[in-house]
């Protein structure tokens, strides 16, 4: 049962990383609100005479009154954070660092390609193939991948389209595209969740950490050394990290996305804060309905961009980056030499199975 504790550990560390990002994000949201000052020239709230001191400042800080309309959230007179935190963060650091992050990964991948080139099959193709992913596995992968690409493009368009696409194609066309992007984003999100759920069920058994992973990681997966091929089973340590990242990021992006889709009906942030406070954090205990939406929107964008950055790396190595890799998800059949170099232990396992299989009389796996 050693592996289960290992999983728990790795899940916990990924969570800790996510938490660190959350805290950073919230920190930067909270700062501008505290720094906010105003210097009104007309007679303003400050000149209130007959009311308790601080009455108007309470209102500016979001004090709630009564309204006679059904929407009780409308009782908030002013929520300054909409401007000082939400707008400031979304139009500021969020877009800035997202741009940096996306440019950085493109730059690094190009640099890697220039320096390392395409990773070749060292022994050349044997011409013999073996099945790596069956139809169901490939279906799960492409359901996930296809919907992801559309989610990513429509999401990025929401964030950056106004600055890069709109000036080129004009407001009307841009709004039309963005509206359809929104519909696609909303509906395909469910296809994506389904794809990830399926992939999780199919692959989770192959993604528990084992002792070979450490060796693989120490050797950098052979990514930086020609001819180095640390042993791996069906999935190597890099692929396992990707798997668990996808699982966690999907949960996070889906929950925050659902909060945006069904506004004012969820309390994910309040629940997350409560859980984090239980393990020693000091986060706000009450989150208003509108702050819930603001935080979910910003968090969704952060996780979305992080996800895109990671997947760009994955797309690179699965296509131009490595000879023979695409076949695994393309036809499902990989060259045996490729398999021996990148997943030596898996090949051995499959050969064992193939040997015992005919004896057992089951011919379900045409291994060669």
């Amino acid at each position, binding site marked *: 049962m050693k592996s289960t504790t290992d999983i728990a550990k790795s899940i916990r560390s990924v969570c800790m990383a996510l938490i660190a990002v959350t805290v950073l994000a919230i920190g930067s949201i909270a700062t501008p609100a505290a720094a906010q000052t*105003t*210097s*009104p*020239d*007309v*007679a*303003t*709230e*400050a*000149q*209130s*005479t*007959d*009311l*308790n001191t601080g*009455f*108007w400042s309470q*209102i*500016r800080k979001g*004090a709630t*009154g*009564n*309204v*006679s*309309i059904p929407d009780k*959230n*409308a009782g*908030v*007179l*002013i*929520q*300054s954070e*909409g*401007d000082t935190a*939400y*707008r400031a963060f*979304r*139009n500021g650091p969020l877009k800035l660092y997202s741009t940096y992050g996306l440019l950085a990964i493109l730059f690094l991948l190009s640099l890697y390609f220039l320096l390392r080139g395409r990773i070749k099959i060292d022994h050349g193709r044997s011409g013999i193939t073996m099945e790596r992913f069956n139809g169901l596995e490939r279906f799960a992968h492409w359901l996930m991948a296809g919907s992801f690409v559309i989610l990513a493009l429509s999401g990025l*368009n*929401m*964030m950056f*389209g*106004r600055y890069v696409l*709109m000036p080129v194609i004009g*407001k*009307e066309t*841009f*709004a039309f595209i*963005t*509206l359809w992007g*929104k*519909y696609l984003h*909303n*509906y395909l999100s469910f296809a994506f969740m389904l794809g990830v759920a399926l992939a999780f069920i199919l692959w989770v058994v192959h993604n528990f950490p084992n002792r070979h992973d450490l060796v693989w990681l120490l050797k950098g997966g052979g990514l930086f050394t020609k001819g180095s091929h640390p042993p791996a089973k069906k999935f190597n340590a890099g692929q396992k990290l990707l798997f668990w990242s996808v699982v966690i990021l999907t949960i996070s992006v889906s929950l925050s996305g659902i909060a945006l*889709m*069904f*506004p004012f009906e969820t309390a994910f942030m309040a629940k997350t804060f409560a859980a984090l406070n239980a393990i020693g954090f000091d986060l706000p205990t009450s989150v208003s309905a*509108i702050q819930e*939406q603001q935080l979910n*929107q910003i968090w969704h964008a952060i996780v979305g961009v992080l996800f895109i950055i990671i997947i760009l790396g994955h797309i690179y190595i699965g296509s131009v980056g490595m000879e023979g890799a695409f076949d695994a998800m393309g036809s499902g059949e990989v060259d045996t030499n490729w398999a021996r170099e990148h997943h030596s232990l898996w090949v051995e396992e499959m050969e064992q199975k193939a040997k015992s299989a005919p004896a057992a009389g089951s011919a379900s796996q045409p291994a060669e």
Partner: protein
Amino acid sequence: MARMKFLCDAERCIECNACVTACKNEHEVPWGVNRRRVVTINDGKPGERSISVACMHCSDAPCMAVCPVDCFYQSAEGVVLHNKDLCIGCGYCFYACPFGAPQFPQVGNFGSRGKMDKCTFCAGGPEEANSDTEFKKYGRNRLAEGKLPLCAEMCATKALLAGDGDQVANIYRERVVGRGFGSGAWGWGKAYPGSGS
């Protein structure tokens, strides 16, 4: 040119909701959409005050800044308007607005909020002034007819003032001087930071 502003005198507002009703009727806004609302603080307690609030037509409007399709524009009179043909109903403007002004009619199935609707300062939208299309999408365009917003005109106590910001501020200042107290030009510090009166 005049810079249009609203001002609600909290010492005068009696929470009669005439402004809300006038607005709904004048623009025939759909069910569930409240371009203007009256909020009562300390309801039923000493120090109770009511304030009528709608879009404040901010100088540096947060809604304009976050809209992914850039569908807002500000008129020469400072009125913040938007183009519903471009709006995708994402709701970001509502998250950003300090005054809770943007409204969304509930349409169709999940995830499809209707086009955003909000107070236009009775100034319509980008369609031809006082055309049928403009009325259906944005309501009446009273400014084009040389009139001021109906909510303020309907206000029985003249708590709600609407018009040229300088004149509105002067009327209010005279009042404060006359009665010796006032709770301030509510929301102005937030909507027009650093602007002169």
